[in-house]
């Protein structure tokens, strides 16, 4: 019986734009179980970015509850959320967001520097090396982001997200800056990690990309409109798999 990783109920987020209240989220309910691969879709303005920010503990809801790994994180302050992000969430962004002039392995080590684990340098190195191996970048440890292709940079970002063994991988348009072939490779990696048991939450506006998830949620006007379990698309090119 898989555990429930994300438990969201009656989630509301209201932005004040001058005198007007904008209801970015208008009472969202969403549950995600361990081992799921869920895609959140929707046009811009649908509230999917706001939902992602709250799921990622970058932001707090105005009302409602959000249990991540059975911990209520909806009322935590800045520093408490930083600790949760570090321990439970692995971010993958559209623009990779690697530190320039910092080698691949050092980028992957970064979350461990801020972690509560207090790992030794050797242990961090080893974990980062293993993480890079999982995304198929063994041997590229000392490359700098500028020496890597877009797909490789995104793999470094995935390795960084994985390294602390978080409860969820949260990918925000991870293929938005990649060509279709590389996109397929990256989605393949997510599927592989999901096959190994990792929970993946994917935010995208591209239906093609959403097809790689097992479950697709459509958002519109701050509400979940549609929640369906689809037939998962598998990449045709598997050359990138480690």
């Amino acid at each position, binding site marked *: 019986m898989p555990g429930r990783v994300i438990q969201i109920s009656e989630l509301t987020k209201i932005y004040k734009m001058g005198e007007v209240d904008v209801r970015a989220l208008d009472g969202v309910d969403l549950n995600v179980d361990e081992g799921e691969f869920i895609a959140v879709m929707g046009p811009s303005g649908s509230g999917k970015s706001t939902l992602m920010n709250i799921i990622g503990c970058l932001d707090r809801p105005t009302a409602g509850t959000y249990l991540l790994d059975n911990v209520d994180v909806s009322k935590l302050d*800045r520093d408490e959320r*930083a*600790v949760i*992000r570090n321990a439970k969430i692995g971010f993958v*962004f559209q623009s990779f*967001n690697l530190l320039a002039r*910092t080698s691949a392995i050092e980028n992957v080590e970064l979350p461990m520097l*801020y972690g509560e684990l207090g790992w030794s340098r050797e242990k961090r190195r080893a974990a980062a090396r293993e993480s890079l191996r999982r995304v198929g970048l063994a041997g590229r440890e000392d490359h700098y982001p500028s020496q890597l292709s877009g797909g490789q940079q995104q793999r470094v970002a995935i390795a960084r997200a994985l390294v602390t063994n978080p409860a969820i991988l949260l990918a925000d348009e991870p293929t938005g800056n990649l060509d279709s072939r590389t996109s397929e490779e990256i989605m393949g990696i997510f599927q592989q990690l999901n096959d190994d048991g990792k929970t993946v939450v994917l935010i995208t506006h591209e239906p093609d990309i959403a097809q790689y998830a097992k479950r697709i949620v459509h958002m519109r006007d701050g509400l979940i409109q549609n929640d369906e379990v689809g037939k998962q698309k598998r990449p045709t090119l598997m050359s990138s798999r480690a």
Partner: protein
Amino acid sequence: MKNSVIRMGNITVVGLKAISRNKLRSFLTMLGIVIGVGCVIAVVAIGNGATKSVEATINSLGTNFIMIFPGAATQSGARIFTGQSTMTPEDADGMKAECPAVAYVSPMVRSAAQIVSGELNWGTSIQGVSTDYPLIRSWNVSEGDFFTDTDVKAASKVAVLGQTVVDNLFPNGDAVGQIIRIKNVPFKVVGVLEKKGGNMMGQDQDDTVIAPYTTVMKRLAGKTKIDMIQVSAVSGSQVQEAQNEIEAYLRQRHRIQPGQDSDFMMRSQEEIAQTQAQSMGILRTLLLSIAAISLLVGGIGIMNIMLVSVTERTREIGIRMAIGAKGRHVLMQFLFEAVTLAIVGGLIGVAIGVAASLGVGHFLKWPIVVTPASVALSFGVAAFVGIFFGFYPARKASRLDPIDALRYE
């Protein structure tokens, strides 16, 4: 606890990397601190050296030393030399008997001349004094003897040479017993004075010829008045008393009515020292204010660059926050960067300051005293400037919203 120390260590290394990436910019940022700290070190070192050097030269004047000049200090304090000296050797003669606080008295007559010995000649100053002179100035002969009271009474043509004169006229030594010619008058060298070095004006005190004042007045200068009286008080505590006695004695001798200005004035060794200390203090205050301003400007420079750096690296800050950096992690990273800039600047400043002080010391022949306290002080000030001016940009960085920071282009 140990873990958190290790983690902070890791984060501070990040700051170091950022500095080494922008070497030129980092150096320019440090420049203000470099100059400020360099100034502090140099000022303190040179100031201490100068104080020591002044103390030494003032002590070399002699103990409990008082000078009496002809001329008057007017009520406004301006010194006026009326042209004609009214001071005679007789003023000096009676002084010892009339003033109990006075230990030694010597008149002084000054002249300048070209001195010839064989084929060599040397232009120097001639000072006519009495036999009390070596006692007043604590200045003994290293060879031969000082001239005697008999020589003074008889206006004998004898001379005692300063070391510089010996070096120039008698390169092989052996000056005692030789004859030198001053303005064509032959003088017998009876002694050589020990080396005394420069005075506080930088003049070489050894570049002189000492002769009986009677001889100088009659044979060389053709004067009937004297240029100065030098006096030594019985003890340090009686310098003021001696000055009062001399004042009363000379006013009576010169028949100066009460209320009238004296036709002479006095300076004691202590007063000279005070004047010197005062001008030294002004110089020091001036240089220290330059240093303070420079440190302030340097600090503002650091703040400016750190603000630019925070803006430039907004994205980086967002990434760090997203993967779990707390506000204080980011704060420490940027604060450490600012403090490192300041401290490295401080180190370079210390090096430059020490080098500059040694250079100045070599040039002015001052003893240079670089104290650990001044190094520690300027270093501490540099670190403080780093923390003070680095704090605002660092806090700004730590308060960024991770969502906005991640979106920043």
